[in-house]
């Protein structure tokens, strides 16, 4: 008794869209960061789903890589956010626009 693949894929699409919307509309760097994680995990879900579907382990191996990279990314990203907060007293991404042309 297993849930059919389209449900997983639909959930993944919903999660990805939520994460994307969060990246695009939220101003707090932390929320944006969490949204990115959400998108990553949506992709992970897709990978696992297809791996099960095909009966191969490649996708699941790939998920481990993504999890490790995401963990590393969290460390660096949080450090950057903390630094930004120290120098600017804010983590609003709209205030951090040094690269504006």
């Amino acid at each position, binding site marked *: 008794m297993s849930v059919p693949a389209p449900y997983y894929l639909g959930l993944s699409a919903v999660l990805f869209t939520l994460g*994307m919307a969060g*990246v*695009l*509309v939220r101003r707090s760097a932390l929320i*944006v960061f969490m949204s990115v994680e959400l998108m990553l995990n949506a992709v992970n879900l897709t990978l696992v789903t297809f791996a099960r579907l095909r009966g191969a382990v490649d996708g699941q191996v790939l998920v481990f890589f993504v999890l490790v990279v995401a963990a590393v990314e969290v460390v660096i990203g949080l450090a950057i956010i903390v630094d930004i907060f120290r120098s600017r007293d804010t983590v609003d*991404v*709209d205030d*951090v*626009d*040094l*690269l*504006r*042309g």
Partner: protein
Amino acid sequence: MRAAILIPLFPLAGWVVNGLLGDRWGRRAVAWVACGTVVAAFAVSLAVLARLLALPPGARSAAVVLYEWIGTGSVRAPLGLLVDPLSVALALVVSGVGALIHIYSVGYMAGDEHIARYFAYLNLFMASMLWLVLAGNLVAMFIGWEGVGLCSYLLIAFWFTRPPAAAAGVKAFLVTRLGDVGFLLGIFLAFAVFGTTDFTAMARAAGSRLPLGGPAATALALLLFLGATGKSAQLPLYVWLPDAMEGPTPVSALIHAATMVTAGVYMIVRMHAVYLRAPLALDVVAIVGAATAIFAAAAALAEPDLKRVLAYSTISQLGYMFLGVGVGAWSDGIFHLTSHAFFKALLFLAAGAVMHALGGETDMRRMGGLAGRLPATAGAFAVGALALAGIWPFAGFFSKEAILSDAFRAGRVWLWAVALAAAGLTALYIARAFALVFVLPPGEGSAGPAGCREGDAPRAAGHRGLAPGAEVADPPPVMRWPMGALALLTLLGGALGWSAARPGVLARWLGPLLAPGALRSSEGTHGSEAALAAAGLAVAVAGIVLVWLVYVRRALRVRSQAVQTVLAHRFYVEDFYAAAVVAPVRAVARWAGGFDRAVIDGAVVGLARAIGGGGAVLRRLQSGYLRHYAALALVGVLALLAYWMWR
């Protein structure tokens, strides 16, 4: 003979020393260095002369090669001197007259704050001029030729804060440059014809390499003569010399009367072997000389400016010299060059003394009756004027008569007649100048000479460094005795060229060097010679008497508005140049400037603007907002997906 190199080296050292250190030293030290080096050059010239005199006449020529300057294959041009009677005679005249003018300058420029720069330029000029006359080949001569041109420019524009002086300097440089192009082409042609430009070698090879009257000889002679017309201010390139009077008066005396402007005459005598192979070119030289002589003499008649009268007079006298060498009278050309150096330098120095006394005034209409107040100056000017007019026994009489009789005996009767008429005009204009400045009471419509300066004094004093409102008096001894020395030379200089039995001293001295039989028909009896001399003297006296009648006694009234207008515009030559040469060049320059701004600059600036504008548009993409970048990435991904789905 190697010592001859010291002749130009001494003034060159003076230039270096005064140019580098002069501003730190006192005026006295600067003057001593400047005068000392030139006197030393004169002394070395005398020593070289003594060495030459000790040699037999046929062996008085020594080439001194300093080092191989240009040596590529068949084109060789060593930096070398040629020490022979001609170059030593010129070196003596240049350094002797130059030394006197240097000493005079000490007094004349005493009030000028840039005296170190002045003497540095003057020494550089002496070095260039002495190098020019001593150079052993055309290429080496060209160095001196351009050097004197540069110094002429620098010294004409010495008071460069005055726009007319700066403009006159540029004009002199550009106009002589036109002639220099011809001179340079002549050097190239000489290389092509002879394979060398060494004077001795060319003189030896002229007979075999240049067919008589052939195109090569004529072209070479005419190209070199073009250079001479520029440097020596002959028709049609004379226009720079009258304007050159913007420079300090001793400069006019040294460069624009005694030495540099005679370089063309010297060059033709130096190259006479080539000219003898080109009779047509010689005729051109003679005709240009005679035409210039009478043209400039006529122009001097209506000139109100004392220095410009002397400038036109110089042009006219240079015309005589070219007439002389044009009929093959080489040594008489050099003779007139020498005597003209004496008396014209004297006239300029006397004019400088007048200006010195009047605070820089050069307009003769504002002078008058100065003989009583400036007796020494008036005496010096009178000696120079009589020599210029050709009155016996002054040097000018002998040299001018020599050229006139040469022209006559060479069968150029028409040229002789023109030159004789010019001699009459010469007496006329110089007597008029003397009368206006020294004899007549100050002209109507202007105050006395001392009073009339008050208004203009600041201008003149500010730029010329002369004391305003100074008492009208003869100059100090440092200026007076060079004038005295030149007056003496003017009085005695005739002995150089005239003796009971021609040829004179100078002709015999130069004789071994100059090709024999230069005069095409040299038979002439003493009787005809005396008659010719009498004719010249009569014309000169007639000119002076005419001035006396018109200006002093006012017995004759000469009124011809048309003639006066034409003379006042100097036969409209300069107006013609302005319309025919300057205006088209300006128009082309304006068009080229417009093209440059519109098309060239337009393309360059337009390209830069386009890139800049593109950047300004693209920079809008860099908003600095994280979400814009993320959205762009999303759009990109969606576009890629769409592409893969529907392709």
